C-alpha cells in the first residue's frame, strides 16, 4: 500500500439519500436540520464550492405542527408583479392548498440567498403522506433524527390500556363530565 493510498477514503463525495419524517415537527426548526444535510454541512469535507450536498426526502409534510397560533397568524406574501397584485395567504390556507409548500418555503428561507440555493432545493423531495414513489424510496439509505418527540394521542392508545392505567381517584358519582 502506497503512502498516498493509506488514507484513501472511498466514496467520499457520494450522495446519500436521507429520509425525514415531518410528523409533528416544527417546519422552521426542522428546516435548519434539513438545510444542513442538503448543503452537506454535516460532512467534515464541507466547502461552499464543493458539491457535497445530500438528497433529503421529506414525508408526512401534511402533519407538521406550527407553534402557538401560527396557523392563524402567519401570512405568506405573494406579488404577481402587476399593480394591486399583492396577496397575503394565511398558513392554514396555504397548507390546505398545498401541504408541501410550508416546509418547502421554510427550507428555502433557511438557506442563504445565492446562485446555489435553487439548485440545492432541487435535491429536496417533499411528500405530504407516507407513500413515496418506489424509484425514490429505493435510494434512501439513512434517516434524519427528528428534533421533537412525536406524542401519542390519547384516542390512539388502545382502550384496554387506558382502562388499566393506574388512577389517582374516581370521579364522584354526581360529577358531570363535559
Amino acid at each position: 500500500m502506497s503512502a498516498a493510498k493509506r488514507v484513501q477514503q472511498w466514496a467520499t463525495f457520494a450522495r446519500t439519500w436521507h429520509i425525514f419524517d415531518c410528523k409533528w415537527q416544527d417546519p422552521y426548526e426542522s428546516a435548519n436540520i434539513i438545510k444542513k444535510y442538503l448543503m452537506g454541512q454535516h460532512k467534515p469535507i464541507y466547502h461552499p464550492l464543493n458539491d457535497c450536498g445530500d438528497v433529503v426526502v421529506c414525508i408526512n409534510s401534511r402533519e407538521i405542527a406550527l407553534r402557538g397560533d401560527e396557523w392563524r397568524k402567519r401570512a405568506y406574501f405573494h406579488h404577481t408583479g402587476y399593480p394591486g397584485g399583492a396577496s397575503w395567504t394565511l398558513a392554514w390556507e396555504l397548507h390546505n392548498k398545498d401541504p408541501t409548500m410550508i416546509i418547502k418555503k421554510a427550507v428555502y428561507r433557511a438557506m442563504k440567498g445565492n446562485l446555489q440555493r435553487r439548485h440545492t432545493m432541487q435535491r429536496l423531495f417533499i411528500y405530504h403522506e407516507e407513500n413515496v414513489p418506489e424509484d425514490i424510496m429505493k435510494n434512501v439509505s439513512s434517516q434524519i433524527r427528528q428534533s421533537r418527540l412525536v406524542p401519542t394521542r390519547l384516542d390512539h392508545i388502545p382502550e384496554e390500556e387506558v382502562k388499566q392505567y393506574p388512577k389517582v381517584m374516581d370521579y364522584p358519582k354526581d360529577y358531570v363530565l363535559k
Partner: protein
Amino acid sequence: MVFLTIANLVRVRGPDEFWRKRRIFRLAAHYIGRRRNCYSIAVRNVHRALVYATKARKLKKQDMIDLWNTRITAACEQHNITQFSLKEGLDRANIMLDRKSLSDLACWEPRTFECLAAVAKEKLQLDGFVNYADKKLPTGTELNLRDVMLEHWLKEEKH
C-alpha cells in the same frame, strides 16, 4: 511654468504624470471598457478595489474560521460530542490543537479525529465534567470508549 502665487506651486504634482497614471492603469489592466482606458474612471475603480482588498484581508480570515467551525461541528456531530466539550476535553488532556489543525484532521484523517474525540470524552468522564447538551440531541454513533486505553496517561498531572 511660472507660478505667480505660491498656492499654485503646491498643487503641481511633478513631471512624472505619465508614470503616475501608468501605475493606476497597471492595476486596472484586467478591467473591461472605459474603466481600463480612461484615467479618471480607472482611478476611481482602482481606489475602490484597493479598499475592498484591504477589508477582504480581515474577512478572509473570518471566512476560514467559519469554515473550520462548520467542519469541526460536522465531525463532532458524527461522534455525539459538542464542539465545546471536545475543546474542553482536549484542553484538559493537554492536547493543544487549534481549530485549523482540528478541521484538517477532521477532513483528511477522520480516524485520528475520532480518536481525539474519544480522548476528549474519556477525559471529561474522568474529570466528572457533564455537558448536558451532548445528550440532548444525539446526532451520531456513540464512541466505543473501551478501546481508549489512555486512562493512566489521562490521569497523570499535566503541566
